[in-house]
């Protein structure tokens, strides 16, 4: 059985936290460049140009691209034949987050309790989702998820009779309602199916797929493409000041569900779509 050491996980997580906040992914950066060419509004173009310059400065100076350095959210694929030694996986992740946010001069945005609002001071606890998989690898996916777009996310238990049209209508209504608050241009993550809690997870998980990569199911891929077009017709534009770039991408994940249900969750991501993946050996 393969052994993975606690301290190695801490070190990897620490670096992921720092890197995700300073180095915008190539996929998002190219999406900005592409949008700059197609955006119809002059204000929209100016905003996209500022976002490109911002990403360049953040990378060159190794400073956070956004002051909201997010909730650290992890999806961890744990191979069932690997053995973590020296401590628990969740403790290792939290220690890595605390170190990464401290060393990286990142903002601590997590509070102990939603009602007393006292800051924990090191951006932990992280949100950790564990998926047990075959094999002996440990793959960690991490995102620094900003609060503005998270706050405009939504979940609805639609009726089966609402069908495809109902799903589309609901997604468009949520993007419209979010307007400037979610910091467009957005990445729109959608979960369809599962049950109440599973659906929200699917929406979050969909955001980990790099921009420009379509779903492997051609029908879902087509729905993603259709929604990109429909959302960009809403006119919201960069920062909601009007324009043709409202969504950089739409990601959908689908799962089986109950005969009575059509759950749909929409997890909005601002343009600072900060994702990292590593495999610990």
């Amino acid at each position, binding site marked *: 059985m393969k052994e993975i050491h606690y301290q190695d996980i801490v070190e990897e997580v620490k670096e992921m936290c720092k890197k995700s906040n300073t180095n915008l992914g190539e996929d998002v950066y190219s999406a900005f460049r592409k949008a700059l060419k197609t955006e*119809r*509004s002059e*204000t929209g173009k*100016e*905003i996209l140009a*500022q*976002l490109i*310059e*911002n990403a360049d*400065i*953040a990378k060159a*100076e190794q*400073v*956070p*691209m*956004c*002051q*909201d*350095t997010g909730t650290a959210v992890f999806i961890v694929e744990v191979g069932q034949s690997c053995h973590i030694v020296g401590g628990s996986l969740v403790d290792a992740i939290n220690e890595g987050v605390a170190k990464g946010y401290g060393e990286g*001069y*990142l*903002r*601590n*945005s997590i509070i102990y309790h939603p009602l007393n*609002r006292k*800051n924990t001071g090191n951006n932990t606890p992280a949100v950790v989702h564990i998926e047990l998989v075959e094999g002996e690898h440990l793959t960690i996916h991490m995102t620094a998820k*900003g*609060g*503005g777009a998270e*706050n405009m996310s939504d979940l609805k238990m639609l009726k089966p009779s609402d069908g495809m049209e109902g799903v589309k209508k609901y997604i468009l209504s949520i993007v419209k309602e979010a*307007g*400037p*608050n979610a*910091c467009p241009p957005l990445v729109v993550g959608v979960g369809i199916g599962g049950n109440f809690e599973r659906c929200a997870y699917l929406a979050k998980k969909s955001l980990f797929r790099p921009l420009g990569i379509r779903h492997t199911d051609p029908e879902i891929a087509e729905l993603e493409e259709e929604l990109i077009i429909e959302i960009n*017709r*809403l*006119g*919201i*534009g960069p*920062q*909601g*000041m*009007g*324009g*043709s770039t409202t969504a950089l991408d739409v990601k959908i994940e689908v799962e089986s569900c109950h005969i009575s249900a059509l759950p749909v969750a929409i997890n909005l991501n*601002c*343009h*600072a779509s900060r994702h990292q993946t590593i495999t610990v050996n």
Partner: protein
Amino acid sequence: MPKEIRLPLNDDELISLKAGDRILLSGIVYTARDAAHKRMVEQEKEGIPFPIDLAGQVLYYVGPTPAKPGEAIGSAGPTTSGRMDLYTPRLLEKGLKGMIGKGYRSEEVKRSIVTHKAVYFGAVGGAAALISRSIKSAEVVAYEDLGTEAIRKLTIEKFPVFVINDIHGGDIYQEGVAKYKL
């Protein structure tokens, strides 16, 4: 080309500002977000005056990242303004003239902006590293215990914003979307 404005705002400038204008602001602004707004307004009800005189001033809704050694401030982009809506009309009554943030304001705040002849500016959300370059100094002046949410006095130089809501009732979020909706 953006128009350059030196703070504090004067009445002529306030009248000339139109929703959608690109502006570079220079001068003094104060930071305040959720926790500072809540404390200011709740303490005032108990008879404790605001810790800073807001008359004629501009508030920036921001919770910056920690400054690296030798830097004035960390990354410092705008946060969502709507969370301040509950408290904003009272601050406008006390003479606040401008706000910098991002996102929708409530109908009450928009009416209040017109009534009290003030302006709501939007900075580009998520352009925090770029925006920080135009912040030359930062000093905590109140509520230090609130950490990133403390009230800071910032000296800004050519700080890039857009006019979102002007004193004439203009709203670029509505006008912009109407123009580009297909």
